[in-house]
């Protein structure tokens, strides 16, 4: 991981110049990684068992129809040319047409992605707000019952099947207690009421000043968002704890204490200040994981996001949609990784 890379060479150079170089190196690796991702999806989508021609023309097509479609898809050309064409299409935002919705995949993704983004964002916010303080306290009060509780929370989070926890949440909070809205983004009476501006229903209803829709949407999102929040909480609190422990055992902390600094100043002004960059890296990573982790959550809560989209497409062998979705999720994942990497290089003096 990038956290471990402490480069010592070139210390005399201006930080900005170094940073620009880092940006170019990173860009290079983004391009290579993206090409790799596209090659994999290409192999999965075009070369593997499902025949893309049959998927379009159907089983009963005549030989001539089949051949025409075969040529139209460019399947008679060499693999490397086909791959080049595929990359070109993807760069231009063309993922082909979805068999299921009969619309361009890119349009579909644009429509469903905000729902996932909304869910994952709320989830990661919950994870930060609860996870960071928990991790700090667990590190400071190491070995006490608070530390043990934090440990159990994380351990359970790492071991729990998310889709099952979601089902149990629905059963208890929706089925039995009736505290939250059920599956879906809004109740059936509120569907399509607010004009979609951002595609995120909470934001759209605020923009439209429609508080009924806002309340209803909130009651629907609270459960899936808490669920995702719990998972990022488990990860963030563990990482925060171990970063803090590392700082608290450092000598400058002892010095600060000896100088008579108050304990809260030692913890927050000294130790915590030094783990901020590492924390942002962790948060970016957990955000990326949440975008992906929402696949199963979306199924449970009938949430019309990209996870549901990919899975539905998958079950009906709609390969264009599956590949398009995979590339988009992969791209977001890679970009978030790179972002945290650059941030780390820029802000952490030790990495320069």
């Amino acid at each position, binding site marked *: 991981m990038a956290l471990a890379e402490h480069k010592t060479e070139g210390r005399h150079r201006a930080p900005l110049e170094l940073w620009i170089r880092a940006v170019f190196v990173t860009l290079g690796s983004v391009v290579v990684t993206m090409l790799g991702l596209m090659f994999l999806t290409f192999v999965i989508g075009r070369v593997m068992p499902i025949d893309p021609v049959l998927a379009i023309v159907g089983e009963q097509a005549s030989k001539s129809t089949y051949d025409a479609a075969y040529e139209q898809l460019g399947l008679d050309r060499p693999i490397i040319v086909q791959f080049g064409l595929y990359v070109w299409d993807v760069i231009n935002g063309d993922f082909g047409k979805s068999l299921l919705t009969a619309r361009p995949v890119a349009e579909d993704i644009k429509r469903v992605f905000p729902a996932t983004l909304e869910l994952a964002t709320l989830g990661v916010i919950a994870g930060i707000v609860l996870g960071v303080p928990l991790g700090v306290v667990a590190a400071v009060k190491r070995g006490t019952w608070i530390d043990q509780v934090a440990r159990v929370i994380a351990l359970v989070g790492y071991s729990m099947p*998310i889709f099952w926890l979601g089902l149990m949440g629905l059963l208890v909070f929706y089925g039995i207690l009736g505290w939250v809205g059920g599956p879906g983004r809004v109740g059936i009476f509120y569907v399509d009421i607010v004009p979609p501006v951002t595609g995120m229903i909470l934001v759209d209803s605020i923009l439209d000043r429609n508080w009924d829709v806002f309340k209803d949407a909130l009651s629907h999102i609270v459960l899936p968002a808490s669920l995702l929040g719990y998972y990022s909480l488990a990860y963030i609190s563990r990482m925060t704890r171990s970063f803090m422990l590392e700082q608290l055992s450092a000598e400058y902390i002892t010095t600060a204490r000896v100088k008579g600094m108050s304990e809260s100043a030692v913890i927050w002004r000294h130790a915590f200040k030094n783990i901020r960059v590492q924390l942002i890296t962790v948060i970016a990573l957990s955000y*990326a*994981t949440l975008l992906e982790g929402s696949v199963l959550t979306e199924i449970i809560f009938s949430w019309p996001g990209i996870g549901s989209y990919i899975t539905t497409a998958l079950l009906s062998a709609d390969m264009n949609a599956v590949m398009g979705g995979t590339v988009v999720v992969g791209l977001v994942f890679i970009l978030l990784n790179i972002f945290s990497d650059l941030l780390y290089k820029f802000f952490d003096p030790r990495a320069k």
Partner: protein
Amino acid sequence: MAEAQNWRAWLLTDTPTSRRHARLSALYQGWLSFRGNTMAMVGFWILILLGVMAIAAPLLAPHDPFAQNLGNRLQPLGSEEHLLGTDSLGRDILSRLIYGSRITLYIVGLVALIAPITGLLVGTVAGYLGGWTDQVLMRITDIFLAFPRLVLALAFVAALGAGIENAVLAISLTAWPPYARIARAETLTIRSSDYISAIQLQGAGALRIITKHIWPLCISSLIVRVTLDMAGIILAAAGLGFLGLGAQPPSPEWGAMISEGRRFILDHWWVATVPGMAIFTVSLAFNLLGDGLRDVLDPKDSDK
């Protein structure tokens, strides 16, 4: 009694008399420190139980896991004859759970073999040979690492078709890169040590050095990583099963059982709840065991 004392003394000696003696002694001391970790022991015993359950499934299961009885469907917990109730086709949930442990162990076992071995191969070769081999192999590893795992596994299963073997393959394909990283890092430190130079001077080839001298030293860190990964593997397999992409009906795979029970969750909650508890218990056990093993085998990383 006295004999047991002798054994203990023999195992705990500071002056081992042979290589095997030293190895057994190290193993025993590791076991002693592992045994002191209560939580790890809990995990250990849960997994032993799971193993026994899987092996003795035909003896333990009160009913045939596939036998349907529509007149007796959706029986509640603790009903007569069916301790954990029955599912929508009247099949005994307890029996299905017991047989399901075989599938879980099968998947986990296969992935835990394929992924680390692939990673070991890639990592040691890259680390030992260096140069462009290293560049190419590690670039590929990075590409796989940069992917969202579950989505990639989904795409693979979509292309290969649903089924246990394909689920195993898909999970392995997404699980090997971290092992390659670890193996490479270990290889880089081992490669420059004196005893490797000594063997090189004796004329040993790369193949011999990698297989006989580097692999054995990478094993312990890989084992720790595998145990910690097991929970993730179980959850991924259950997730694929839940989506209908892993084991196919009527197979009593735990994830698929949850998916089946999901339709009746509000009225017949136990059908989906019970297999979920099973998945949770087993992956928790693996996490506990992994933490304990890490403390014994890899103390520098413990307490993180």
